[in-house]
Structures are given as structure tokens and as C-alpha cells.
């Protein structure tokens, strides 16, 4: 379909959904003071209901979503069972008001509480908050808890630094900074992780916390992680485990047992909750008994058979309103129950099997190299590769190759977070869901595209060719004279399109 922007569709006077009329005798004019009334109706589109349906149905059809083969690294593509969508569409979830008395939705609260139990089992932590609306928000919560913790001990003015690593997700330094801390970023050494020495040089009495993930998204595990934690504890800092890559180590590692004070799971990633394009999601934040009193309220506690909501004693307040994305918690709980601990263990097995299977085949492709090739041990649930040699040979970048692969029904792959330590990176993550045939096809398409690029670089450089629209020309995206994030701005800057 050549689907117009919704403002180009419909006609004046069309109606999609008509609101109910008021049953009150009052007339419209007296409702709002004249000075505050809208002068004219908002400039919204006017479409009949079927036009809206057709339009958004077309838009969905113009979205590959994950209905191709999506090995999107660091995001751990999972099966998102439809049954969980059906369950959470029930009014006992969807229509609950957050201000209802806890006695009126005990079942829902109980499920969230049970999810906390499961995560405690998996992490060894003592308490969880599900308030953060995503992984970044959980990292922010850690910075916020860190602030409150040190403040409670009168040390905050002194502890102004948070240490992270170049391979940590950008949200870790960014949220630390947003919470007011200075950020120290440890470089990655030749083993693929920072050195204990560099850490020790970076920490001291001003250290508030360490924030990192492990394994990182190159699939490399830092075997000295306990030394890291010990060192940070020694200088009085807190250690936070960004468990974004939990998929490779489920049931094998527990954050608390490694010594971490706090950790984070992405329920939309590791626990089968759909990503919805970019949320609603949940960063489940777990912590030790020592930090639990600082968690945001409301927290669900079980008194006898009754679930209640309380404010923790030294609560940091809120990072967002209420209990978080409760419907996603139900989905995560359901997924966790469907998997069981055996299933989680098997999922880790299969993730590593699939990744190492891919690695074997990808490394056989000319032009593909691996990050930190000196690292001999098998990678965890993903491996970061580089097309550096291929780029040198053909002039084609990893973005070119990615674009061309979508022409074959392969969802875009993940490149890497900033900073790009590995040049021309790509990071497929096979996970436990995708079948061996999917992996084989993915590999075959990559091999095909690489060959195509050698024969006909222009074909790949100008890709995609089979998508709804051609390659975007992004040259004006950061230019205030050309960017247009709304239709009104577009019409003003570019005419009527």
C-alpha cells in the first residue's frame, strides 16, 4: 500500500467513534469560561471507523515487527504467548484502578507478589521493586537508592561518583548522571573486560556505586567480578548488576551470591513480555535487605493471607507513579510459571547452543571477524562480530548489509551500543525461541548479501529494495529547518507534501 499520513485521509465531517452525549441538562456554552475555550476544534483527522481500521492495519502490515526472523542482540527476542495477552485483557487486570483498596484486587497483588518470590529465587536478592518502567529506569532507581542510602549515612556529599564500564549499557552512566553523580567509565582491556587494577585506581572514598553488566553484550563474562565487588565494598560503595543479559546464565548465577547489592532484570526481554515497539516494559529492581528500606512505595507485603501495600521505612519515594506496569508483571509471572526453573535452565542452554552454532558458521564467512578474537572460551548468549574487513574490501558498511538483509525477510540486526568499541559491529542473538532452520536461513542470507556486495556493491549500498520505502535520507534529521516531528511542522516547513 502507498499509505498516506492520516491527515491526508478522510474528509470533513467523518466520524470514527462518537462519544456518548451527556445526560446532564447543562449546555456546552456554560461549561467552560469563554476566555478559556478553544477557539476552534483541534486539527485532528476526520475518518470513518473503517478508514481508521484500514489505515492502522496497513501500517501494521508495513511493520516487519518480529514476524520475520529477528535475532536482535541485547534484546533477547522471545516468544510472547498470546494467552498472556488474553489473560491481561480481563477486567480483573485491565480495568483495575490503581487507587482501589488493596482488598479489592488481592488476586492481582498476589500474582505480583509471587513474581517477586520467583525473582528472589533466581537472584538471591531479598526484595524487588517493579516500579521502574524499563531497564534504564531500574538503573535510575539504583542511582536514586544509592543516593538515599549514602545520604542516610551522612556520606552523600562525599560519595559523588559512580563507576561503570565502556561496555555497560548507556543507561547506566546516563541515569547515574541524571541522579546527580559524576561518572567514571572503565575502559575494556584486551580480555574484553576492564581490569581490576583500573577499577581500583578509579574507586575510593568518593565512590557511591559500581554499575555494570556481566556477561556483557559481546558475550564475554568477567571472571573477576567478585574481586570487583569486593573492591567496591571495601571503599564503601554499592555494587549494581545490570542483568540485561541474564538469558545466558539463568539458574546458573545469582546476583546476590556473587556479592551484588542490587540487580535488574528486564521483564520485557528476558521474561517473555512483548516489547510493544518500545515498551511498556519493566525493569525489575532487586536488592539486599540492607537496601530494601529505601525502595520506592507502594510495596506489596503479605500479612497472613492478605496482600497489602506499604511505604518502606526510608523510601526514596517514587521513580514513577504506583506499582509499575502491572499487566506486564502478570505476563512475566505467567511466562515464568510456564517455563519453570528447568525451562529457564534449558533456555540458557539453548541460547548458548544457538549462539555458538551461529558463531561457528559466521566465522566461516569471509569478511566477518569476532570481537576480542583472543578470547578463546565459548561466548555466552551472543557474540559481537565485525565487518571491518568486509568494509575495507567492499566499502560497504554494516548498516548497508543490515538494510539489504531486510529485503529477505530478516529483521534488522543489532549493531552495538555507543561507544562502538568494535568497528562495523553486528550482534545477532539467537536466544532459545528461534529454530535451527531460522538460524540457518539467517546465516544463509548474510552469506548471500556479503557475496552480493562483492559482485554488486551498489545493490547493497542502495538497499532496501523490497521494503515499503527505500533507504531514508537522514541528512536533514538534525536540522531545525527540516526536521518535522509533527504533521503541522511538516506542512509549515515543507509545504503540503
Amino acid at each position, binding site marked *: 500500500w502507498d*499509505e498516506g499520513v492520516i491527515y491526508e485521509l478522510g474528509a470533513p465531517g467523518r*466520524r470514527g*467513534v*462518537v*462519544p456518548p*452525549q*451527556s*445526560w*446532564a441538562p*447543562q449546555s456546552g456554552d456554560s461549561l467552560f469560561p469563554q476566555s478559556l475555550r478553544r477557539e476552534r*476544534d483541534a486539527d485532528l*483527522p476526520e475518518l470513518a471507523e473503517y478508514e481508521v481500521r484500514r489505515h*492502522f*492495519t496497513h*501500517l*501494521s*502490515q*508495513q*511493520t516487519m*515487527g*518480529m*514476524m520475520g526472523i529477528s535475532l*536482535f542482540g541485547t534484546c533477547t527476542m522471545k*516468544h510472547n504467548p498470546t494467552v498472556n495477552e488474553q489473560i491481561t485483557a480481563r477486567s480483573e*487486570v485491565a*480495568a483495575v*484502578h*490503581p487507587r*482501589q*483498596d488493596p482488598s479489592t484486587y488481592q488476586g*492481582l497483588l498476589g500474582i505480583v507478589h509471587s513474581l517477586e518470590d520467583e525473582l528472589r529465587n533466581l537472584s*538471591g536478592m531479598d526484595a524487588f521493586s517493579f516500579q521502574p518502567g524499563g531497564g534504564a529506569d531500574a538503573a535510575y532507581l539504583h542511582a536514586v537508592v544509592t543516593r538515599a542510602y549514602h545520604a542516610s549515612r551522612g556520606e552523600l556529599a562525599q560519595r559523588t561518583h559512580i563507576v561503570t564500564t565502556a561496555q555497560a549499557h*548507556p*543507561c547506566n552512566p546516563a541515569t547515574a*548522571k541524571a541522579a*546527580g553523580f559524576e561518572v567514571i567509565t572503565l575502559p575494556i582491556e584486551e580480555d574484553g573486560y576492564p581490569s581490576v587494577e583500573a577499577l581500583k585506581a578509579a574507586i575510593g572514598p568518593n565512590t557511591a556505586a559500581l554499575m555494570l553488566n556481566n556477561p556483557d553484550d559481546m558475550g564475554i563474562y568477567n571472571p573477576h567480578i567478585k574481586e570487583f565487588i569486593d573492591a567496591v565494598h571495601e571503599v564503601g560503595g554499592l555494587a549494581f548488576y545490570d542483568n540485561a543479559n541474564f538469558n545466558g546464565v539463568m539458574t546458573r548465577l545469582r546476583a546476590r551470591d556473587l556479592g551484588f547489592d542490587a540487580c535488574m532484570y528486564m521483564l520485557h526481554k528476558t521474561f517473555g513480555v*512483548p*516489547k*510493544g515497539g518500545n*515498551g*511498556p516494559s519493566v525493569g525489575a529492581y532487586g536488592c539486599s535487605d540492607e537496601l530494601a528500606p529505601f525502595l520506592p512505595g507502594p510495596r506489596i507485603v503479605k500479612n497472613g493471607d492478605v496482600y497489602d501495600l506499604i511505604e518502606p521505612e526510608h523510601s526514596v*519515594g*517514587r521513580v514513577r507513579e*504506583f506499582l509499575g506496569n502491572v*499487566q506486564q508483571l502478570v505476563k512475566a509471572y505467567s511466562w515464568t510459571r510456564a*517455563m519453570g526453573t*528447568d*525451562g529457564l535452565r534449558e533456555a540458557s542452554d539453548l541460547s548458548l547452543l544457538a549462539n555458538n552454532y551461529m558463531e561457528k558458521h559466521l566465522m566461516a564467512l569471509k569478511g566477518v571477524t569476532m570481537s576480542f578474537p583472543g578470547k578463546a572460551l*565459548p561466548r555466552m548468549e551472543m557474540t559481537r562480530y565485525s565487518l571491518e574487513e568486509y568494509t575495507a574490501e567492499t566499502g560497504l558498511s554494516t548498516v548497508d548489509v543490515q538494510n539489504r538483509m531486510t529485503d529477505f525477510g530478516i529483521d534488522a540486526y543489532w549493531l552495538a551500543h*555507543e561507544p562502538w568499541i568494535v568497528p562495523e559491529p553486528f550482534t545477532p542473538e539467537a536466544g*532459545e*525461541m528461534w529454530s535451527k532452520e531460522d538460524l540457518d536461513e539467517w546465516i544463509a542470507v548474510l552469506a548471500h548479501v556479503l557475496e552480493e556486495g562483492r559482485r554488486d556493491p551498489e545493490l547493497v549500498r542502495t538497499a532496501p529494495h523490497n521494503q*515499503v*520505502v527505500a533507504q*531514508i535520507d537522514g541528512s536533514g534529521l*538534525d536540522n*531545525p529547518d527540516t526536521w518535522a*516531528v*509533527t504533521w503541522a511542522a*511538516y506542512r509549515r516547513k515543507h509545504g503540503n507534501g
Partner: protein
Amino acid sequence: MSQSHPYMANSAEGSRQALLDGIGIADAEELFAQIPADHRADDKVQPVPGIKSEFELRRLIEGRLRGGVSTDSHISFLGGGYWKHHIPALCDEITARPEISTSVWGTPSSDHGRNQAWFEFASELGALLDLEFVGLPVYSWGCAAGHALRMAARMTQRSVVVLPDNIDRERRLVIETYAGYRELGGSLEIREVAMDPESGTVSLPALQEALGDDVAAVYLETPNSWGVIEHDVARIIEAAHAVGADAIVGVDPISLGGLASPAAFGADIIVGSIQPLGIHLNAGGGVGGFIATRDEERYARQFPTLQVSIAPTTREGERAFGMTLFGQSSYGARELGNDWTGNSVYLWAVRAAIYLALLGPAGMRELSETVAANARRTAELIAAVPGVSVRYGDRIFKEFIVDFSGTGRTVAEINAALLDRGILGGHDLTGSHDGLDQCALYCVTEAISEDDVRQLISALEEVVPA
């Protein structure tokens, strides 16, 4: 041979073996060699059996949920920033499509349709706000307010933010978190302005007193947390501008079908909740916040969010949608970016886009009028119950304060009695602000029928001693 798991294709024996063979190993355990033995916690995890049967799983979860009370099973007058509006069926249908609901992050070409839906969200919401620069949503209204205040602080290089003292507690606590601690860098100092108890709106003299050249921003809400429409938005914004501060206004987008956008009075940043735009309450999991400004570089450069812009493609005359100003986000700049972003609530943006397209200009106007008319009338009827009074009932949009202090019953008692009668009474404001003990905030939308109100009134007449 163990049964394979429906969620894992390669858990089928043959598929798993093919992977093992492909790698040339006998046991997946070999692949965990990177982890030192003393890091392993295998034994510490308590085994929980998996439930492979969809039916059993469903029975377990639905069994636990069964019997729960909700705003569907009961007549609900709860509000306070989380509102029961009608959700058009199409919002559910489209966002349930897996192309949308399970999507992640493709290229501008491969996820073209979804990106267009995001653009349409920003366009439609912008039209309602009369603003041309709208970020993709953040977690909640409180988060949006927090980010907006920090934007203002960065722009003005000042650190004081002025807030009315009646902001709903949940949102207020979020703002305080975003304001930070004075021991650390970049923190904001919150200066409170008292409400005028007569009008239920911000006290202008108090505001004047709070203003000075250290003020980065004035934040106000209309309708405010007591449900009252601020009648002097223009003057408040003017006062803020007079000291060089930005004016940030929090709104209920439903109100803007009938009310002028604060942008018309000079507001610099508008924030609010997208929850009423077709999103289920989800026990609080249905929220999302927005941040919008004029399309001016000064503001655009401060957005912490992602946003999609229309852009040309390499094919003549074709349009695509790409990220604008990605480099100033935390994805692009780590700690040097504006605050941070990450997984947010973009699926709700699609819902809101559908919602606003369905309602259209006339629908939003009519909805806004229906809500206000229903609320006004309900307030009148409640005020007629002996011993019960309503505050600011002539200045409200959809929420209003009901004062039960004259009844000799606590709000808690009254709500318990209402619950027995199938009604969720208003949010108890006791302790939230001076003078609000045994008051409750009642919310009435288009989803409340005349009969619902009649039931409430009868119930109140039973519950409240004559």
C-alpha cells in the same frame, strides 16, 4: 525423550542435537566455561516445575484473578490522574496485532508502518496542544514533569522550580526524585506555592512572592489535582516569563477538546498523561507521559526522548520516518545526553494515535463537553445529599472535591459502605493537604451514566446519617 517446550523450538530433541552436532560438542554445559566454578549458584535455585500446558497455565492465573473488583465490575468514581474513559475497540484490536505488539527496532524501512504511527501520535497530540514538537512518550505524567523541569533548568541555568502545593502525591514524589539531592550536581530546589482555598487555584500573590531571577520554571496544572480549571493561566505564565522562567503546564488532554491549550497563553512546555487516550488503567500500568514544546531549537535540543521526523528517502517523492536528534539522547551520548531514555511506553503512543484519529476534532470537543457536563451535574446532585458539600463545583472539569466532614463519617467508612453496594467511592484526600480531612476526590467521565449517579446518590443517602 523429554517433551519439548512450546516456547523453545530447539528444545525438540532433534533440533537440540543438531545444534550440538553443529558445534561439535556433547553437552551444552561445555559452553559455560567462561564462568568460574565458584560463581555458579545452580544448587541455590529452588526448583519450580514448568507448566507446559496452556490450559493449566491459564487456569492457574485466571483462577487467582477471579473475583477481583474493577472499574468494570463496579461503578467507579476514582480518579486523581488515572481516569476511566471509554476505550474504543479498535485501540485494542490494532495494538494486539503482533506486528505492533511484539515489534522491537527495525530499520526505517522495515518498521516503516509503526514509525509512521508514532509520527501520527505526535502530530495528533501536537494538534490538540497547538504545539509542533512532541517527544515520544515517557513513563508517566510525573516523569514528564520531572524531565520538563530539568529541561528548563538546563536552558535557564537556574535551579529553582516553583510548584503548587496541591500536586497529587504520587506525581509529586516522582518530581521530587527527579529534582535530586542538593549534595549532588544538577539538583533542583523545589519552591512551593500555596493554593488559594477560596478558588481552588494557585494563589497569584503567593506565586509572585515565590518568583525571582533564580527560578528556572513555574509548573502548574489545569485542571489541577483538585479538579479545578485554572482560570488565570495567562497571568501565571506571564509572571513566570517576567522573571525569565519557563512556564510548564500539566494538562489532561481530554479537557483540550473544549479548553484552549495553554500554548495559546504562552506555555513553553506542556506535559501530561496519555492514559485517557485509549489506554486501559491496568492497575496503574496504563500510564504514559508526554512532553511537547514549540518547534524551536532552544527547546528541541533539550528533549531527553526519542522522536521520529518525516524525512525523504532515496526514491524521489517518497517519505520515511527517522529519528531526529538521536545524538542528544542517552543512546547517542551516554552520560552527556539529556537525562536518559530507554524502553518506554511506545505501544501506548499507537493507542493514542488511534484514539485521537477515531475521535477527531468534533469527537474531542463533544467528549470534553460531555465529561464536564456529567461531572458538574454529579457534583450538584452529591452536594444535595444532607451533610455533604462539594468544593469549587462551578470550576471543575471532571474531578471535584466532596467534603464529608459534616457527616460524622470518615471517607474510609463511606467508601467501605459504597463498596458493599457495588460502588468505588472517590479517592480519600484525608491528610493530603491542609483542610482536606474527610474529603474525597470524585471523578466523573462520559463512562458514568445517569443511573450510575442515581445509584451513588441512593447509596450515599443510606450511608450518610440524615
